């Protein structure tokens, strides 16, 4: 028997709660420190920290420019741990029956976690499908977001909220790429 207040924290949050909170990060970070909300800059900062080499793109004062954002990313990890450990209600994702049906038809068997365990595990790295999804997918994320100058947070949320045309072009690209992966590439990888 848990209190209704606690239950509200434990159960999955609906879009109309989560979306506005996420939106408030844009003015929040501006008001706190004149920072633009955008996560993928951390990938660039990580390069600047670890291996700037002679690449001009990574030769800047990452402590001054990216320190706050690296700490923000660390916070995301901590927040994920807190929510996963303390606020986890029923495990699994509450996707609708339509998505469940088409993913099952695709060959997905495990619907209990945040992702199909057989596709996202260390063992999956031994398969070519796992390599394409985890290594290839990750590489495309990093290359694409650096090329486009932002990811879902920087372009789709910060950029579109500021009515920036370049962000709209980038977001249309995000969706074009996502649809190609989902509808054309994924069937070759899952259950294939």
């Amino acid at each position, binding site marked *: 028997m848990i209190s209704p207040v606690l239950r509200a924290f434990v159960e999955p949050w609906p879009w109309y709660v989560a979306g506005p909170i996420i939106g408030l990060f844009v003015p929040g970070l501006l008001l706190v420190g004149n920072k633009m909300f955008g996560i993928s800059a951390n990938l660039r900062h990580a390069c600047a920290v670890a291996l700037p080499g002679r690449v001009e793109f990574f030769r800047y004062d990452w402590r001054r420019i990216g320190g706050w954002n690296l700490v923000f990313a660390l916070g995301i990890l901590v*927040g994920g741990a807190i929510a996963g450990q303390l606020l986890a209600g029923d495990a699994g994702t509450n996707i609708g029956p339509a998505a469940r049906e088409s993913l099952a038809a695709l060959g997905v068997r495990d619907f209990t976690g945040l992702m199909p365990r057989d596709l996202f595990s260390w063992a999956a790295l031994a398969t070519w499908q796992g390599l394409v999804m985890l290594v290839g997918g990750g590489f495309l994320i990093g290359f694409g977001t650096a090329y486009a100058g932002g990811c879902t947070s920087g372009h789709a949320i910060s950029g579109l*909220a500021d009515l920036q045309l370049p962000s709209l072009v980038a977001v249309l690209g995000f969706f074009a790429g996502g649809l190609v992966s989902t509808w054309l590439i994924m069937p070759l990888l899952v259950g294939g």
Partner: protein
Amino acid sequence: MVIKEHSGTRRGDDIGTRSARRTRDDRTPPSSGAPTSAAATSAAPVHAGAAAGAPSPRGLAIYLLLGTLFGIVLTKSEVISWFRIQEMFRFQAFHMYGIIGSAIVVAGLALRLIKRLRLRALDGQVIVVPPKVLGNGTRYWVGGTLFGLGWALVGACPGPLFALLGNGVGVMLVPIASAIAGTWAYGALRPRLPH
């Protein structure tokens, strides 16, 4: 540095007084007078905000707190779920569209308010949102499409990647590492790529 931060906090308190703000506008330059760094002059500057120096540990604590809140929201709203991303790209639920859409609306209204009231950040600097330059748009549609291909393959974008790691999905270290490698590859190839 420390002195500057103190006075900045004090100035941040009277954000609502318009006349006081105007007089300060006259003497405060819109950006720091420090010489522009290599990053600032390059075609793709890192947004540094208006702060001139590295923030203090105490200044960083608030970003840790905000990041933690963000990680909790991403997890509790199932944005970090591979299934939710698949559902979105299959147009089978409103959930993700509702989240992204309402986030844009709320952020957009807040930005309008910030600009109209010419609000200042806690350090006293006027808030500026640097505009992006479209150019011929190549970098945005090519880079965006490549990112989208990866987003749907992994089922997570950069924020959720970190949140998933926190949720105990250790194998997410692999896409994080290869995303960093991908960013590095872009940095190395950048002079030869069309933008």
